């Protein structure tokens, strides 16, 4: 089956980001494919390339990056949320006159249409919040 995921929790608190990444890895292990993972609201902070976690703390952002590198999972952050949380790729940093990007290159900045497309072209949409 084709799955897409909607992540609503920030990576620094709550459970949604961690659980979503664990779910994606298990789904792939069972032979499913992940069409897209869409990060909305505070969940967009998972894309920060500036977050530093203590070595003994679980870092969901690393789990997402690994899924992208190992399985080419597409990670998309909502542009309107991302801008509010200071998550800028090179294009947005340039457009808004900021000195540097803050988004991990494993993530793509795009619009809500990507979520609609993911829903329309997946067998399952799983939402992880809280």
């Amino acid at each position, binding site marked *: 089956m084709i799955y897409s995921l909607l992540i609503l929790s920030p990576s620094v608190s709550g459970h949604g980001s961690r659980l979503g990444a*664990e*779910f994606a890895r298990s789904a792939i292990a*069972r032979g499913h494919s992940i069409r897209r993972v869409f990060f909305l609201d505070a969940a967009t902070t998972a894309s920060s390339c500036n977050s530093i976690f203590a070595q003994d703390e679980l870092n969901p952002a690393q789990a997402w990056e690994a899924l992208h590198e190992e399985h080419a999972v597409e990670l998309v952050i909502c542009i309107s949320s991302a801008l509010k949380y200071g998550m800028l790729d090179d294009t947005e940093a340039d457009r808004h006159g900021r000195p540097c990007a803050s988004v991990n290159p494993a993530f793509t900045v795009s619009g809500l249409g990507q979520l609609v497309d993911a829903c329309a072209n997946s067998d*399952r949409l799983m939402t*992880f919040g809280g």
Partner: protein
Amino acid sequence: MVLHTLSAAPSGAAFNDCLKVLQAGDTLVLFGDGVYAALEGTAACDKLRATQAELFVLESDARLAGIAKTAANISWLDMDGLVALTERFPRQLAWY
């Protein structure tokens, strides 16, 4: 038939909202802070069982919360099991 997932604690509004629509034939998976509803002897646990829905709790999250044993009629589930449930259910309702 709907697959419900609850990641909010029983003290939160999401728990009561979930309870209102949960019914026999549905399946509920507790994870995150939702695992506290799997504690035997709590009002939350009794309310969930009264719905006659099929009840699961994510074992890894429950053990992190210090829950070593689930209440009667609530089964352990691992992440692989959650994926298997989503293969059965076309729709998920996420309560958080």
